[in-house]
């Protein structure tokens, strides 16, 4: 089955990000495909390049990045929700005159149109929220 994930919760504040990542791994392990993960609302914080959790906790940002790279899963972050919350890639940082970027590949800033497209293209869009 072709799945997609919509993640609306910030990492570490809620269980949702942990559950979403484990769900993503589980469905891939079962031979399903994951067409994309879309980060919206507070879920955009899952793309924070500078996240530095204690070593004895799962590193969610690195977890998503590893999953994206290993399985070629697009990790799409809503640009409007991200910019408001201080999540900028190099291009946006330059555009807004900010020093340093807080989002890097494999995460990509993109529009909400991608969420709708992803949701309608897949068999199942599963939402994880707080």
């Amino acid at each position, binding site marked *: 089955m072709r799945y997609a994930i919509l993640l609306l919760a910030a990492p570490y504040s809620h269980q949702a990000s942990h559950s979403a990542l484990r769900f993503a791994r589980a469905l891939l392990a079962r031979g399903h495909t994951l067409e994309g993960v879309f980060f919206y*609302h507070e879920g955009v914080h899952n793309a924070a390049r500078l996240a530095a959790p204690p070593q004895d906790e799962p590193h969610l940002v690195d977890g998503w990045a590893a999953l994206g790279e290993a399985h070629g899963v697009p990790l799409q972050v809503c640009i409007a929700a991200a910019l408001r919350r201080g999540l900028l890639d190099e291009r946006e940082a330059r555009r807004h005159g900010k020093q340093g970027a807080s989002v890097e590949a494999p995460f990509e800033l993109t529009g909400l149109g991608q969420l709708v497209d992803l949701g*309608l293209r897949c068999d199942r869009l599963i939402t994880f929220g707080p």
Partner: protein
Amino acid sequence: MHDETHHGDLLVILRHAPHGSSWLREGLDAALVAAAFERRVTLLFLGEGALALLEGQGVGPMGQKGTAPTLAMLEMYDIDRLLVEERALRDYGLDASMLLLPARPVGATEMAEELAAHSLVLNF
């Protein structure tokens, strides 16, 4: 105007009141974008989300942008299928004359049918 047996591509469920959080605004943004991409969108104002439809709202006192102007734009985006939870209207003591837009009250059975009748459901 869509007829009432016609169901859209996308059902956006709005469960939060204005101002207190960004849920309502970000949910509406998703609906507008989908409509701009020519998807048929239904909005369901559920629970506290029914308060979004109240007439006479301004911006939030702490600088929140407010959602009433966005709701006023729905028609321009061809989002004209608006549903509101019957029970929420009752719980908050509201009636249709107090609403900014003509949303149709729906009960539990009809809500279940709506959930089943759309290809994609986004819940905010």
